[in-house]
């Protein structure tokens, strides 16, 4: 096991679209949560040396300095390889020089900022606040402190957003010159404020145009390596790759998921239960066929696709024997086999579900 995800479910502000596992920040609750997080880690972690640690949320940076110090101290129990990618999610309104220095001290080397948009119309719908000036200042500060690996999240296809609005967001983000950009079209999830207010999706054709605009804007400086992810050379997210490459990972904290051996485990999303040590919600024991199915639906999210030799090595089975349907999909030009790997071409990535469902059993 080489990968570990830590979930910090606290936020200073709840965004209208968010269906992640989160609660409003409360100092006492955070302190209690950290105690139970430590207990969970102690009971499960097996002293593996980790290549990636990813602290996600919620908003991990919403914790105060003392709490962050406590959290990172707990995580020193996790053994780090020399080349570790150690990430933490932040937002611009809660990050400070003091916190950044603390991250440095504990060896965090990758920062991921939820920016989403700088367009005031969009921010109003998303119920977020961002200040361009502050963003520029903080990114400069991070770089000055030596953080070379920085991700920024961009959201698009927000109701009433125009191509022009998106272009302005892209121009701003490109100017920040960070090493990694993740883009997401807005999903209106059930039970979120947007869904309750019956907000509608933008037109499918416009959504696709926006996606094309993003690909075009980022093409020069970034490699489009996964459906929603773009990275400068050498800056792909090693942690996220572990998901797409169907590798094992720990997941600690409220609502976290882990994949241990052949079992996929989802933690409870109930804070009350979590604070009673009842952290497991459900788990799925996978057969070899299940695992191969995951290999396909996850691996085909990567533009480089699935390496045929590696597949054979991993499962002692030829990929075509495991999934004869690949032949049909090649004939329909939905998949490509370049001799080494099987992949979805960039122009079909945005309808990839149509392809992926062929690898799901009935």
């Amino acid at each position: 096991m080489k990968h570990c995800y830590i979930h910090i479910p606290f936020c200073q502000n709840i965004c209208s679209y968010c269906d992640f596992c989160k609660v409003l920040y409360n100092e006492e609750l955070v302190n209690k949560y950290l105690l139970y997080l430590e207990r969970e880690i102690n009971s499960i972690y097996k002293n593996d040396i980790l290549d990636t640690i990813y602290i996600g949320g919620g908003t991990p940076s919403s914790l105060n300095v003392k709490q962050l110090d406590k959290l990172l101290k707990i995580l020193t129990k996790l053994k780090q390889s020399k080349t570790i990618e150690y990430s933490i999610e932040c937002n611009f309104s809660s990050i400070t020089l003091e916190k950044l220095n603390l991250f440095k001290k504990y060896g965090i080397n990758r920062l991921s900022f939820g920016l989403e948009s700088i367009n005031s119309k969009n921010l109003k719908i998303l119920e977020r606040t961002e200040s361009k000036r502050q963003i520029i200042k903080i990114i400069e500060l991070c770089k000055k402190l030596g953080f070379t690996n920085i991700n920024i999240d961009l959201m698009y296809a927000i109701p009433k957003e125009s191509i022009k609005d998106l272009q302005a967001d892209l121009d701003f983000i490109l100017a920040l010159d960070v090493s990694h950009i993740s883009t997401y079209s807005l999903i209106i999830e059930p039970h979120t404020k947007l869904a309750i207010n019956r907000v509608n999706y933008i037109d499918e054709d416009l959504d696709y145009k926006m996606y094309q605009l993003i690909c075009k804007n980022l093409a020069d400086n970034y490699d489009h390596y996964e459906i929603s992810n773009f990275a400068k050379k050498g800056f792909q997210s090693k942690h996220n790759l572990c998901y797409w490459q169907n590798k094992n990972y720990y997941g600690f904290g409220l609502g976290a998921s882990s994949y241990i051996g052949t079992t996929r485990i989802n933690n409870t999303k109930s804070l009350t239960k979590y604070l009673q040590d009842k952290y497991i919600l459900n788990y799925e024991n996978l057969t070899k066929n299940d695992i191969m199915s995951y290999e396909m639906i996850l691996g085909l999210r990567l533009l480089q696709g699935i390496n045929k030799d590696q597949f054979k090595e991993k499962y002692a089975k030829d990929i075509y024997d495991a999934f004869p349907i690949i032949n049909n999909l090649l004939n329909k030009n939905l998949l490509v086999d370049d001799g080494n790997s099987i992949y979805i071409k960039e122009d079909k990535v945005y309808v990839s579900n149509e392809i992926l469902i062929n690898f799901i059993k009935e």
Partner: protein
Amino acid sequence: MKKENIRNFCIIAHIDHGKSTLADRILEKTGAISKRELKEQMLDDMDIERERGITIKLNAVQIKYKYNDEEYYLHLIDTPGHVDFSYEVSRSLAACEGALLVVDASQGIEAQTLANLYLALDNNLTVIPVINKIDLPNADLEKVIKELENIGFSREEIVLTSAKTGEGIDTLLESIIKKIPAPKGDETAPLKALIFDSVFDPYKGVVVSIRVVDGVVKTKDIIKMMQTKANYEVVGLTINNPKETSVEALSAGEVGYLSASIKSINHVKVGDTITLKDDPASIALPGYKEMKPMVYCGFYPIESNRFEDLREALEKLKLNDASLVFDPETSKALGFGFRCGFLGLLHMEIIEERIEREFNIDLIATSPSVIYEVLLTDKSKIIVDAPTKMPDRSLIAKTYEPYVKTSIFSPKEYIGPIMELCQDKRGTFINMDYLDESRVTIYYELPLSEIVYDFFDKLKSYTKGYASFDYELIGYKESNLVKMDILLNGEIVDALSVIVHKDFAYQRGKLVVEKLKEIIPRQMFEVPIQAAIGTHVIARTDIKAMRKNVLAKCYGGDVTRKKKLLEKQKAGKKRMKQIGSVEVPQEAFLSILATTDKK
């Protein structure tokens, strides 16, 4: 049982006018059944009937009732209430001496009721007019009484009831005994028993509902069906009071059920006469008609491996429904299925729903078609009950389509819209009768295909639901008919072809392609939809290519959720039919019935 103390009667009413509730109340009042046992509407025993408020299969109940110290036997024969089943209605009427004409106190008389009243009068039945639902706040007794007076009843003979509260039920029972004549008939004459319904029972075989007109039938008798010539030994005779009770014999005037290990419903035809093999009656009872399907459509299982299951389902339904016919057919688009014939559209919908619900088979029903006649250039005539059977245009000399005479019953303010509608539907006006100052019956001749298409829905929307209608087949007329094909991605989808009048083809084609565009989801590529007559395209639209179907968000490694979303999408696809390279949802096949120009 003294013949003088028997009363055989039925209830004539429009759907929703409270026929079944009234029957229940009579059962309850006479102590035949307790309130607790009374599932709402005891007489309708299929779920769909109860849900749709229509009686599909008949039922006969014996009720004992003491009046003036005499014990009377009332046989209540339930009748179906929809125009599709009017022949069955006429046969159950023929089993009675009297009928209750039930009219809703707030709605008044409807076309259906009137049509069945005339059927009852044709059968020389004594009719007791009943105004039901008098408890309703919007009941308009004076108006309804006037209507009844206008069709020849006197104010005095009208019985007022509320099946809901039980008011008037005693008076009603009293008038049944006083006014409806006891059955005539001769116990000593050779047996003549009318078949007015049948039901398949897995243990007894076909159970036949009979009304003995002359003679006596006993268990162990060898009986003969006079139409089908089939012979059987009577195994059991029962009555329903309303629990099943065995009896030794049924004699002239009585109503009951007969079982004789009859395996095939084809030997049991409603309207046929049962007699004894060794002592046969010389002539059968009048009024027998062969029931012929009026509407045909294709039924196809969405999952092609369920073809045999579909056959089994149809066979099982046919056990109880002699009017359902089916034959295997193949469609290029849909694979193996059955061409099924029905008495009407409602009959078709009921069968479709039962197959999906009771047998759990997802179905595609192709658009309904009537039976056309085509005179070929070589002077031979062929029958066309499916668009695919329409010959090439070069071989056709003349085409004919079935026409019906409709009587549309409506408040007079809708005369204009109704005439406009009938004119749109290629109708020919015949005449118009005023029932009173405010109500009219309008008679039109219309092509049956227009009725099958959307006439009923349109009539309802043109008249805000106030008009009702009834129709009877009057024969074939020459008509300029063409086959219109629908092409998806350049290929003809045979299951979507339809026969239309040439003058209306352009308009229909446009409607259908637009409707299909709405129903068929975007595919991985652009899909043109065309309507064509022969090689001539008359309408076209395109379904745009799918632009987005992606799970973009990844969160903390929760990949099981991603998989679940994909599984859901996959399950959705299973309900679609792959035609060529296009995935088509099942509703698409009825889009030929699409109408958008609702008023």
